[in-house]
């Protein structure tokens, strides 16, 4: 089964055709050992004209192959890619109205920053004066005015990143592809660039397709996240949907820290279901059509738990406490047995030490059940 993605309708832009439409994309590669590995196994994807879509997944999930198929560096074995309704399969990379920011930036080392940025105009034969004006404007926009005469080697990582961005945007593509562009930056700079990228995308009014394996990056920037796994789309949704309502165990575990409990429905009380694990831990979750006796996988994020009064909720002992400034990460081993539970609480005077006995209560409204039966 392939996951159908109807992003525009979800985002309330119904009636407008998608800028990018991918249907049934398939691609496999020969391995050196003589076998074949499937990089894309029937992917569908729609991207709206001013949408920030992130392809999120572990390495080898096919996200980079999908990106390269859009830019024209990989051909599909089957399936279609349409841009503005037009099939791009016959177009070589240089004829596609799509530009890319490469992971390594791929700046031309033998050219000045200005010539790098103006390259797309240079190869189109845009006159020198016009080009210089556009380059100055583009450098200004990414905060690098006055850096035109330098060589890429004389810039810092963050500055190179901006040059790559300015270079990819100067030809005003309808769609910008970004292949893990922030992975080489240190943490502070990465967070700053995340905000800048989002602001830039919004201001330019063009679509971004952003590839990353960093779930935090995906949550921060995206209008919509496409979680990929083994060449398939596992789930598509807004960052909140992906985080709060993961459909599968894979999504729940890949995006953010999580606690998963295999439970059986004991009884339904109004809109709430009482669940119990084999070890005897009791939970409450929204009922949503569950029947007593059904098996359900429960998702609770570390922040969905809080410390309750003694005797209430799940009794356990703190195995490990990690201090993170405002927050405290606890690993709590339930006394009834079963895997340790990850809990995030605000740090304060009453913060428990390792070895302390605690009881955990959880927010029943935040509890989420996976769709797939396990």
């Amino acid at each position: 089964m392939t996951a159908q993605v109807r992003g525009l309708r979800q985002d309330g832009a119904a009636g407008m055709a998608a800028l990018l439409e991918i249907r049934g994309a398939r691609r496999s590669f020969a391995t050196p050992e003589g076998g074949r590995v499937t990089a894309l196994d029937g992917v569908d994807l729609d991207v709206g004209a001013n949408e920030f879509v992130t392809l999120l997944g572990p390495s080898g999930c096919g996200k980079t192959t999908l990106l390269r198929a859009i830019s024209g560096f990989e051909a599909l074995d089957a399936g279609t890619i349409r841009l503005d309704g037009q099939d791009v399969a016959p177009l070589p990379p240089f004829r596609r109205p799509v530009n890319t920011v490469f992971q390594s930036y791929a700046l031309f080392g033998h050219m000045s920053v200005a010539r790098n940025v103006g390259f797309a105009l240079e190869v189109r034969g845009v006159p020198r004066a016009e080009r210089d004006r556009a380059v100055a404007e583009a450098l200004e926009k990414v905060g690098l005015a006055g850096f035109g005469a330098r060589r890429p080697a004389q810039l810092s990582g963050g500055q190179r990143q901006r040059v790559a961005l300015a270079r990819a945007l100067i030809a005003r593509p309808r769609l910008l592809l970004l292949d893990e562009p922030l992975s080489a930056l240190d943490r502070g700079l990465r967070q700053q660039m995340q905000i800048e990228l989002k602001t830039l995308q919004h201001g330019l009014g063009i679509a971004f397709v952003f590839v990353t394996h960093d779930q935090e990056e995906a949550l921060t920037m995206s209008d919509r996240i496409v979680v990929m796994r083994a060449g398939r789309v596992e789930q598509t949704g807004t960052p909140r949907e992906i985080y709060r309502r993961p459909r599968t165990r894979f999504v729940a575990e890949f995006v953010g820290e999580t606690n998963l409990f295999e439970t059986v429905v004991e009884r339904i009380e109004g809109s709430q279901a009482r669940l119990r694990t084999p070890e005897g831990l009791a939970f409450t979750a929204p009922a949503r059509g569950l029947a007593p006796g059904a098996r359900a996988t429960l998702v609770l994020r570390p922040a969905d738990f809080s410390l309750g009064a003694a005797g209430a909720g799940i009794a356990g002992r703190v195995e490990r406490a990690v201090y993170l400034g405002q927050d405290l990460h606890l690993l709590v081993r339930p006394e009834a047995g079963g895997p340790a539970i990850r809990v995030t609480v605000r740090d304060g005077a009453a913060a428990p030490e390792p070895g302390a006995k605690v009881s955990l209560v959880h927010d029943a409204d935040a509890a989420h059940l996976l769709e797939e039966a396990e």
Partner: protein
Amino acid sequence: MSRRRERAVLALLLAPVTLYLGVFFLVPLATIVVFSFLTPGLYGGVEWSFYHWNYGRIFGWADGITEVFEPVYLRILGRSLGFAALTVAICLVLCYPVAFWVSRLPERWRALFLFLVTLPFFSSLIVRLYAWLLILRPSGLLGEGLMALGLRSTPLELLYTPVAVVLGMVYVMIPFMFLPLFAAIDTLDRAQVEAALDLGATRTQAFLKVVLPQTLPGIAGGAVIVFIPSVGNFIVPDILGGARGLMVGNLVEQQFLAARNWPFGSALSVIIMTVVLTVLLVFVARLRARGA
């Protein structure tokens, strides 16, 4: 370590090579320059008196009594430069695409291919050139082969022609062109080629604006390393060249060994060195100007 001590150690480390090159390179070089201005002895050797006719014979001042101007020397010098330039050009055209191909091979095959490129160094140049002789002579492999295939009705007259000399020199020089080219092409960032295409450059534009400029150091290195020994080469024309393929290196050899006119041979050598050095300096200066 103190500054003085550092210098002492450096001097100690540099002394052997300085001494070696001083004795075995600079002294012979100076000898040749000095000899080129001396009078040839009647039965070989030199007489220690200034004599400019060595150069007069070549460049056109001659009194017609002591020495006669012979334009053939300039012609042969020109031919040598032409052959060397042609060798560089053919080696470049042959090696460039192959270097690209090899740089894309899996590691295992690459190592094998690089070994194959250096394989000729494992046997004597003379032996390999005699093998070419067997291939090129009218009754040789090439001639008989073409006739057997019905492509020619008369034996191929390749041996002892300029074509044979250039063929032979290209053969000898290919590894010297290939290795620096490969080094430059192998370190080329492929993502940059993709970036160029992505930004709208056609394949030709991507090659001219991104690939070629970045592999220029390899091209320059290969060209220099092939050009210098090619200009003065005398073994290849000696074995494959005959009279029409004679190069300036053969003249030098003849003057020193057969004619026993060391001053004249020295004058020819000095001219080769000057020409090669000039070509090199102009070439490097141009490359620098481009790079800046």
